[in-house]
């Protein structure tokens, strides 16, 4: 662990918040893309089944 002295109370939260922000952005973006891709696939299958 890097010793940041008394300023660690400001530095580590800054890094923690940044990490949390990145995790939210990655998870939300990937889950959104995955959800709608699956939804498109489901609707296409359903339309194909109706047509045949």
């Amino acid at each position: 662990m890097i010793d940041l002295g008394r300023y660690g109370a400001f530095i580590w939260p800054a890094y923690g918040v940044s990490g949390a922000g990145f995790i939210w952005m990655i998870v939300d973006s990937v889950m959104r893309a995955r959800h709608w891709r699956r939804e498109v696939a489901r609707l296409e299958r359903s339309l194909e089944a109706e047509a045949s």
Partner: protein
Amino acid sequence: MLDALANPLRFMAFSRWAAPGLGLIAAMLIGFGLWLGLTAPPDYQQGETVRIMFVHVPAAWASMLAYGCLGAASAVSLIFRHPLADQAAKSAAPLGAAFTLLALITGSLWGRPMWGAWWVWGDARLMSVLVLFLLFLGYMALRASIDDEAKAARAGEILALVGLINLPIIKFSVDWWNTLHQGESILRAGGSALAPVYLTPLLLTGAGYSAAFGALWLCRTRAEVFRRRAAALTLRAAWG
């Protein structure tokens, strides 16, 4: 390049590998930059708190990049009525808001030990970045408040284009007004004021944050393309 990507099929084929590729580049740049930043010697003036710069400044750069992309995509959508440009504009806003919020929070955590205050009302740089955050939120709220997607897009485009004026205000706020925020220290006449030991990790993390924005922007634009495709298919199914 942009003309070729305007075709949604080509965009989807391109973004399928470009998004994870950019994400990998971002992870490497940010990881290496932060390692260099955390192992650099403490600054003679700011001490250990200088390390907040490696997450604060890149977030601020990414927030401005996101707004620039939102404005550019809005202009293309407004002029050429291209649906993919509108989808790209819509996808940039939440990421821009997130990066701006990160810049505001990390700036506040840097300001407290350096200035003795978490926030300074009236400081031109802080206020112009807060306006940027409100512009992102306003853009998203405006789009969400209009049911007709075409009308929501037009309203959002106009707001995004008007808000572009805030970018030079943010950039030059430290030159035009007396602010507590430190002045321009990288892109300035006479070269960077930062020692290479700080400049190198800052440029690495700055490039990493920009690449991360690019990767996430592509990913969210893909999601938006899929969402509209799903809406079109639902309509087709309803009409039989």
